[in-house]
């Protein structure tokens, strides 16, 4: 028995401990500490911390939808353009009717439709979700541009703006409530209901799931509709917060959303998903953006430092996880 082999034993024992599943929180904590120390005065300001969470709201909500999609081993690239189309549809409907619920229904309806189209091509025509959603990404973006001929549409409906943007309830901003609601629903569906178990099983081994009597096709369809609906909700939140809608909304969100899900511990290859992780991932991204602006770096430097921080944060978090 050499020292080398017994220290290898210690390492092996450490690796065996399941806290490796939770260390994504370490990366988060490290980044938080870093900014808290270097930018104390501004970063730790309660208003600033609230901003971080509120700004992350649409990303968090979409990341939750994406956790389900990735968990089944698919991907949804169309969420970004669905955001814009949902926001614009809601704004146009509001302009026409001035009924907040018709606006909301229009936005969410568009989301459900996009998800359904994605689902049809993925499950019935059996195409890879990457290609289907890449195609609908362009398609939906084109429709969004056509809809109002590239014009931004103001949203002035009071209840709508309160409900999806500037409102607050019990002293807590409405966007925070939306985040909490999405987390609760997402967590409940993934952890507490059969649906979640089926989602993970389909992503882990679709044929084993199939012979276990799981309706694989339906599960795949559902997650795609769900994902588009979260994008549509994000669109409403943007419209509410900006009191207007525009065809470029959400355009740059796709990668951030997927990254938030994956940083949180969801696997790009299916079978593993965590809703709480998506929150942490999305807050991490939001926090980094916030901290770098506060640090007064120029834009190129922000990009460079952001890359480095993500690498380091994730290295601390995910290192040592087995990844065969």
């Amino acid at each position, binding site marked *: 028995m050499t020292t080398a082999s017994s220290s290898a034993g210690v390492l092996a024992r450490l690796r065996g401990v399941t806290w490796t599943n939770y260390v994504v929180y370490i990366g988060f904590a490290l980044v938080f500490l870093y900014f808290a120390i270097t930018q104390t005065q501004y970063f730790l300001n309660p208003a600033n911390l609230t901003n971080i969470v509120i700004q992350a709201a649409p990303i968090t909500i979409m990341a939750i939808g994406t956790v389900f999609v990735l968990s089944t081993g698919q991907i949804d690239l169309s969420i970004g353009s669905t955001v814009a189309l949902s926001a614009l549809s809601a704004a146009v409907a509001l302009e026409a009717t001035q009924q907040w619920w018709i606006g909301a229904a229009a936005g969410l309806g568009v989301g459900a439709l996009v998800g359904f189209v994605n689902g049809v091509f993925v499950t019935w025509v059996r195409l890879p979700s990457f290609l289907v959603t890449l195609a609908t990404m362009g398609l939906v973006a084109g429709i969004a541009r056509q809809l109002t001929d590239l014009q931004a549409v103001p949203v002035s409906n009071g209840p709508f703006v309160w409900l999806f943007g500037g409102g607050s309830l019990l002293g807590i901003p409405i966007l925070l409530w939306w985040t909490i609601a999405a987390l609760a629903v997402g967590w409940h569906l993934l*952890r*507490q*209901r*059969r649906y*979640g*178990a*089926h989602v*993970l*099983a389909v992503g*882990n*081994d679709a*044929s*084993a*799931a*199939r*012979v*276990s*009597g*799981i*309706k694989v096709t339906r599960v795949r369809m559902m997650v795609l509709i769900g994902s588009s609906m979260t994008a549509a909700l994000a669109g409403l939140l943007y419209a509410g917060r900006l009191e207007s809608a525009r065809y470029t909304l959400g355009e740059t969100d796709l990668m951030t959303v997927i990254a938030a899900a994956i940083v949180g511990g969801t696997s790009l290859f299916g*079978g*593993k998903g965590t809703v709480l992780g998506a929150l942490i991932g999305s807050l991490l991204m939001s926090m980094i953006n916030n901290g770098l602006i506060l640090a007064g770096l120029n834009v190129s430097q922000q990009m460079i430092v952001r890359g480095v921080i993500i690498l380091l944060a994730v290295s601390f978090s995910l290192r040592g996880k087995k990844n065969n």
Partner: protein
Amino acid sequence: MSIITAEPATPLRLTGIRKKFGGIVAIEQFDLDVGAGEIVALVGDNGAGKSTLIKIISGLYQPSEGEISLNGEPVVFRDASDAREKGVEVVYQDLALVPEQPVYMNMFLGRELTKGPIGILDRKGMAKQTQELVDTLDVRIPSARATLSDLSGGQRQGIAICRATHWASGIVLLDEPTAALGVAETAKVEELIVKLKERGMAVLIVSHNMDQVFRIADRVSVLRRGTQVATKKLSDTSHNEVVAMITGLVS
């Protein structure tokens, strides 16, 4: 082949089953009845087409030709859930378990227990029942909450058998169920299979173990290179004759 009469219909009847994969014919022509309370063994060399037949009956493959009847009714399964809904339970040779899920989830996959008014997953209940089921088979597992991929080969096979036998209601298909099991565990599983028979199930078991076939089966059907060589009562045949039919050394 018997003509259907007023007596209770045969639980499982296969007529003229044929299966091609591209150019390869995996099964030429296969007919078989499995009665209630009967164990039929399906034997044959490697690659003879046994698993293919099991997968056809369980809805995983569609036969190129031929017909399956359950309890006298012709059925067409589009997928495995169809068959499962009609009471066909299966232990597949490649087990068909979900590796990154806990043992209890695998045991209850597609039929999860729920509790409370809104139907929340009852993880505790599933884990408890799983442990009990596994214990009856003498298969020791570290925990019902262990991840399936951390189990040994025999432990996994034990789980697959527990799952199929627990839910068995009419027809049970077992594809080499004891191949990875130890001596004691094998004995327990054979006991369990006999109990299924006593409960009136129709059991079709694939096995390479002739001793096992002779211990538990009522009839044996032999496949050789996709061709059905014979179906015999075990009381009408001998160990040597079955082996000869399998290997084709005596025709």
